[in-house]
């Protein structure tokens, strides 16, 4: 059971062993305005949920809320403790470090070793000793995604994971999600505009757009 009142703590105080995400009547806000409301869905083990909707509908906001980076306006969601991982638009790649050092850092933070198959799963074996600053945008993206294979979290919140990837890399990433992550009982919530060819439920976010936009009128008191 984990409820997220407004301004809840960043780290997820959820205690459940089953890797199932359950969202009930959730409302999320960005910049003080509620963007999505009345969201309810369940994601059982081994399944992916694709979030769709036009720009600005609140896909990133929803993912950040679920990842525990911001509090929900109302409603609540349940997620397994310390099993979530968030991947944003940004790759979180340090350009002064080598590809290997970048991955090793995240492995150390999560107390894992870098599994050898990660190099092939994300097609970065040839780049291992390259300084990350010299990588192309697509190669950086692959390195950023390879972090997911290193930290081994069951619940992935992916925000536009395929940006700047070519067709081959998109298939490679979809293969990883399907054959490794989901096959091992993980779940993934993915905001994307491309077809990942996954057996996934699609959630259209537009019908959940909040009508009452102004929730935080604190600033107006001073105007």
């Amino acid at each position, binding site marked *: 059971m984990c409820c997220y009142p407004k301004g809840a703590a960043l780290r997820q105080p959820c205690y459940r062993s089953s890797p199932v995400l359950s969202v009930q009547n959730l409302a999320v806000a960005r910049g003080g305005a509620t963007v999505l409301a009345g969201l309810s869905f369940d994601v059982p083990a081994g399944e992916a949920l694709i979030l769709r909707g036009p720009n600005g509908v609140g896909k990133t906001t929803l993912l950040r809320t679920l990842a525990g*980076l911001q509090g929900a306006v109302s409603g609540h969601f349940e997620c397994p403790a310390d099993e979530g991982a968030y991947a*944003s638009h*940004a790759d*979180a790649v340090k350009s*002064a*470090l080598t590809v290997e050092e970048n991955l090793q*850092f995240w492995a150390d*933070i999560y107390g894992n070793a870098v599994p050898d198959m990660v190099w092939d799963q994300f097609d970065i074996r040839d780049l291992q000793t390259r300084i990350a600053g010299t990588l192309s945008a697509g190669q950086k993206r692959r390195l950023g995604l390879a972090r997911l294979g290193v930290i081994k979290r069951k619940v992935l919140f992916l925000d536009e994971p395929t940006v700047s990837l070519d067709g081959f890399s998109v298939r490679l990433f979809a293969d990883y999600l399907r054959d490794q992550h989901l096959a091992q009982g993980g779940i993934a919530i993915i905001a994307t505009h491309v077809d990942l060819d996954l057996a996934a439920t699609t959630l259209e976010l537009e019908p959940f757009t909040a009508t009452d936009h102004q929730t935080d009128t604190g600033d107006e008191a001073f105007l």
Partner: protein
Amino acid sequence: MIALLHRDLLLATRAGGGFGLGLVFFLIVVVLVPFGVGPETAILSRIAPGILWVAALLAALLSLDRIFALDHEDGSLSLLATAPIPLEAVAVIKAAAHWLTTGVPLAIAAPVLGVLLHLDPSAFGFVVVTLLLGTPALSVIGTFGAALTVGIRRGGLLLSLIVLPLYVPTLIFGAEAVRRGVDGQDTATPLLMLGGITAGAVALLPFATAAVLRMNLR
């Protein structure tokens, strides 16, 4: 957590990390002072402790905005916030990395630069000790300021304005301890005050830093 410290030290010493920047700035400020004040050794050696302390303070300020800004830009900060280490620990590690890459080198370089200011040789030890004792507070307070201004474009100037007044107590007691040491007076009180400020800052500010980061990441 060691991994984060290791990474930050590595980043600081790699190209573009700005490791030598603070040190060179410290050197330049100290070299400039005799040009401005004039070459009288009596005056220089009198003001040397104060100059060294002010210069060290400004040099420490120089690299503060890199503490969180770079991690925020490339998205690492959000990922660190969702990683299985508490943000308080991230704040402590970030401050420790800043201290190791600026505070310690400054303390070691200070007596060498003291020669340029005709610093009394008996003060060398006091300069090193007070800087080693005081610079952790500069790093911790600076990390708090960096967390406050994370996400603000060109937040560096704002950061200086926030942080510099908070540096005043450390500066007062640091410079006072050196001055008393040179004059042969009792240095226990300013040294204890200096250590107390550092201990208090190290104990309390990481919690404030983490809280501010949580708000800024929202």
